[in-house]
């Protein structure tokens, strides 16, 4: 199945990605942003905050937005 993944960490791209049936938000996060800490990222599924064991469904819209970003001058 496919979900729309909006990765606001880095380039901010949005793309449909293939995920296995029964994939939880935690698993999806670990695969898409390996090495990132969950507390540093705001994760929403269909614009709503969800628990980490929430199972993704076909067509879901998943956004991951870092809560700390380094600015510059």
């Amino acid at each position, binding site marked *: 199945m496919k979900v729309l993944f909006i990765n606001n960490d*880095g380039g*901010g791209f949005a793309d449909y990605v293939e995920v296995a049936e029964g994939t939880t938000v935690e698993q999806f996060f670990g695969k898409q942003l390996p090495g990132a800490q969950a507390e540093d990222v705001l994760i929403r599924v269909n614009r709503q905050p969800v628990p980490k064991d929430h199972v993704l469904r076909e067509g879901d819209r998943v956004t991951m937005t870092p809560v700390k970003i380094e600015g*510059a001058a």
Partner: protein
Amino acid sequence: MKQRPVNRLLLRLACRIQNELLKLNLSRIEMVERAIGEVLDVAARLKALKRRMALCRMRGWIGGLTPLMEEAEQFARDIPYVATDMDRARQAAAWASPSLRDIYLDLEQAEDEFGDLAYDTKEQTLSVTTEAIELEGVYLGPFEIRLDIRRLGEARGTPYTIEALDPHPASSNEAVTHPHVSNGGLCAGDGGAAIQAALAAGRIFDFFSLVQAVLTNYNPQSPYVSLDEWSGIACHECGYSVSQDDVYWCAVCENDFCQDCSSYCSRCNETVCHNCLETCPVCDESVCPGCLDTCPRCGRELCRTCLEEDQCPCQEEEEDDEPDASRNEGSQEGSREGNQGEERHPGQTVAEPVRIEGGAAPQA
């Protein structure tokens, strides 16, 4: 899930945003067209080069081939750049225009999560306010993130500003209200690309979240003014903020300076800023105005040491002039006496040459 009633104001706003994003997409298509035009231009010039090369080769003009080969080398360097520019323009234009529903839902989410989504119908700005921000113990206050809807359609520039609602700017620069905000502009650093992408896709909630993520974080590697120096003293020359211990006070203009903008007088060793330092024309040393003096013979300004050592160039000039003066002495004695009588005025000591016996300079 129970459907919420449609908020008409948000819907109108979503329509406006969608219209602006459509304009943005069209202007990006125009940029792709321009980039393609540049590629075609290079291709046309390459074709002409190929023709000239073939002509040189067939006629055996070996000398003429050398500059053409250099031209080909230049093309080989330029082609990847124009191709990359074209691809960038294509990628930027590849964003699909968001649906009205998506924009509306994003506005609704921003309203829910920020709580104070405000729309100024006259200025056509959409804004949210952050909580009061304190970074590394420095209180900066709350900030308003203001998005100018009318500027969403511009392909270049940033359509948003950051306003400090309870400003606590850096002491060295009033325009810097946050380590990454100057004159209302945010330097988003690592968040720049994601913010642009969110705006181009009409993801208004993501836009506000990303800007807030930059504002609530501090990057000590690249601030406008570092938090260590937030309450420091501004260098009078360059504005750089320096801590109380590292400030240099100019004894001449009595202002504070950073280390790079200050120096010292090579005669009295007093700290003096670069602007107040003078250069002695004789020894080329940098000296403060207090250590400069006027040569009583020619009026030149030179450092006291050079004056005391009788190093003023007028001394040498006078010696060079001397043989001519003695050669003409007999014939012009009468007229010189006459001239001296005419030119001498009370108090005109600078213009009047004074012969110094034994080389000692008179003290000023």
